[in-house]
């Protein structure tokens, strides 16, 4: 599929991912997070976003990647959703990248969990930028 869109990109466990920038409300550094005991594994906790209580999602877990080490200074990509803002916890925030080339097919070796969330892959220099499907990510969270 062709596109002339902009993706907000970030890194999780060394892999490069991107999201449709129009769905992203903001990116920020998450300082304090309150854990929610007994919550589903994907939910890391709650953060205070200018007075709003926002869910913080462990993207590592959702994508089947190895666990982040420690909680210190994790970055958040805050998405807009019908239930209010939701924050995805990532390692590093990268630039906004423009993609207008054709998406590559996904390799079969990719983890099943991750595969269902990824729309396509785009080469970026030596790396591969994997575009996440925002709606599917949100659905996964609400399960």
């Amino acid at each position, binding site marked *: 599929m062709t596109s002339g869109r902009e993706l907000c990109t970030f890194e999780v466990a060394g892999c490069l991912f991107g999201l449709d920038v129009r769905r992203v409300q903001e990116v920020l550094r998450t300082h304090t997070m*309150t854990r929610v005991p007994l919550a589903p594994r994907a*939910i890391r906790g*709650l953060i205070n976003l200018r007075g709003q*209580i926002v*869910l913080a999602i462990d993207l590592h877990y959702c994508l089947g990647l190895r666990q982040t080490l420690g909680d210190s200074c994790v970055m958040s990509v805050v998405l807009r959703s019908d239930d209010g803002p939701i924050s995805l916890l990532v390692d590093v925030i990268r630039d906004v990248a423009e993609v207008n080339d054709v998406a590559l097919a996904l390799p079969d070796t990719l983890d099943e969990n991750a595969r269902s969330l990824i729309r396509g892959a785009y080469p970026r220099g030596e790396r591969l930028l994997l575009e996440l499907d925002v709606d599917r990510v949100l659905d996964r969270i609400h*399960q």
Partner: protein
Amino acid sequence: MDEIVKEFLVESVENLAQLERDLLALERAPDSAHDVASIFRIVHSIKGSAAFLGYQHLGEVAHAGESVLGRLREGRLTATPKVVASLLAVCDALREMLATIESSGTDNARDFSELVMSLRALRGETTVLASTGATAPEKPVPSAQLAQTVPPDRIARSDRVGDETETRLPSPSRAQLGATAYDPAMDVTVEGIPSAYLAAAETMPPPGTSMPERRATEVRQAAARTPISPSPAAVETVLNEQAGGSGDTSIAGESAGASRRDSALQGLADSTIRVDVSLLDRLMTQVGELVLARNRINQCTASSGDSNLLAATRHLDGITTELQEGMMKTRMQPIRNAWAALPRMVHDLCRICGKSVRLIMEGETTALDKTLLEAIKDPIVHAVRNAVDHGIEPATERSARGKPAEGTLRLRAFHEGGQVHIEISDDGAGIDPERVKRKAIDRGLINPERAAVLSEADVLALVFQPGFTTAEALTLVSGRGVGMDVIKTAVDAIGGRVDLRSVVGRGTTLAMTIPLTLTIVKALVVSAGDERFAIPQANLVEVIRLAGDSPESGIETLHSVKVHRYRGVLLPLVDLRQVLELDGDPSPSADGAANLVVLRAEDARFGLIVDRVYDSQEVVVRPLARSLKGLALFSGATILGDGCVALILDILGLARHARVVTANRNELLDDRERIAPSAPASAGRSLVLCGNGPHARLAIPLDAVVRLERIERNDVDDVGGRWIVSYRGGLLPLIDVARALGDESTSLTAVDAPLQVVVCTSDGRCAGLVVGSINDVIENGPPPGHELGRAGVVETLVVGNETVELLDVAHLLSRGDTVPVVTTEG
């Protein structure tokens, strides 16, 4: 939907509510012209609007009702219960049709022709009256005056249909009648008169001067009346209030009434305004945010020395508090709204059950949050239904008992202690604790031994168990054993309490206590692990600091459940860290200190072990995200003063999760009875270890133990050499174990400290064994030891390094010293 239709629906619903009230009042006072006039006006207004909007069926039914009312108004018909019942049926029919209009846009409800026929039949009866010339005291305007209003030449046509006259009146022009404002009733032209209306006219009364005059009168009345909003009912209310309750609405006072109505309308229009509930909700949320921001600012500036900043902060603080209170008030509605349907319901119930009940409502203006109001509507209906069906006796029975034949059901609402109290009291038969106990035992909710030692309050609390009913048979109304449970669940869900008080033969009172609002609550902040949590004040009983995990500090283990002796009761403990599966050291800190928060959930109490207790704060409750809503332990989240998010614990959910609250309270006692019913010679029995003085060591089998108590000496009475204490609504004899065994008594004589009492039961007898000290409770007691042959002692055991005497509880209790406290049901 059209704006006009919407308006019509809203107003008509209000009008019908008023109509119902008036009809019920009319039944009690059949001669009240005022009520008839009010009812007539309402039905007439609905009929007119229905005609204008093209709702034919609605108009038909309304007209049929109006005709009956016309008879009533003239005194040609008396408001007998039968007549009122028919009119109430009209009210119901109209309501049903309005609902159909709202959902489908048309009034094609079911066929109401039967109703219309029965109404006509009612009117038909009046022809007999009319011909005998009987008239009621209140006669409308003398015919001479009436004749002037409509010149005879305006009568277009007169047809004879059988014995009756049908006349069509052309619509008087507006100018002629002087109507300045729009009135839908005015727009009825000959062509526009619904055929049903005309058809119904065939049953108009005998020919004479009455018919056209009356029609003209109606039209004149309509003219004098001003347009759609505010509703006539509202105007009437205002008028009544102004006139001191007996508003003069007869035709004679028409012109004066018109001007009064006008000024009343003006006042009414200015004082209220309709607002969308969703807008109020949004405002409420914003105010909630403001409160949070205010809290943060307070915290930030607390340490500042800048006096200007502090002054400004204080100012902001005050404004925010006032705004918050004002906002809460906008969502407050008088409880009258929840009680609105009750008079009619009681009226109908009385007819079904064949009883006579007077409903008194006090404190109608007591206000509470709209959401809470919605939540208690159902519980109140259940309570009222129960009271009428079960509580209040039939008239004959009441008279036989010397009570007035008419029962009284009193609803009372008032504010107190920051909460709303609602009491539903009846002067009926009351609740018989013995019957309750029997039923509870029958249904397996409780076993006879425990029933024996329940206090009266506990017995009444049994009534709230699901499935409980003492009704011998299902009646149409209740008896399924659902009502009380529903009440309790609903009230618990909004953070309230329910209590039942009763005196046999005199009556019963159901008392509900509910918080004023949901969104902003006072909470105690505690920590467990590294996280902080908020506990709603409503669930908080007490905070206790314990010295450590040892018998003196009060944390003991009973059947692998941690307990604490709290005011004479074994309080089950829950370790918050454990329940939430938090990391960190599971046991209390090294110095042995632990913080215990005593909480209340439903009627049960338990203690929550936490790491630290912080202060109390007012917190804004934020709903949890959708994906978290399934967590029963949390009821919401909030942002604390320092900006951190804290979860709010759902105490009931927590209690259920930790299994300290179950269908049967005091599950510990249940377990005991199940595990070792009477095991004299089996190893591993549970024992309560006591001491008597420095040397004697005693053991009491746990199965015989009901409670461990600490009793003040002052409470103990010496009755003829026996020690008795008032205990849980009954008398408990105390046995000095040492003396009973023939040893020197150490406990009852000397010191001033409270008595250590092990309340035991055996063979239906109950007594308190007084010992020097209660030391421990062990699970796996040693195997049987030696029999000593000492009266009162079964055998000696070796526990640890000590020799312990196992007491023969049955023997001790069966001695003459004890008095049977409760007899078991045979």
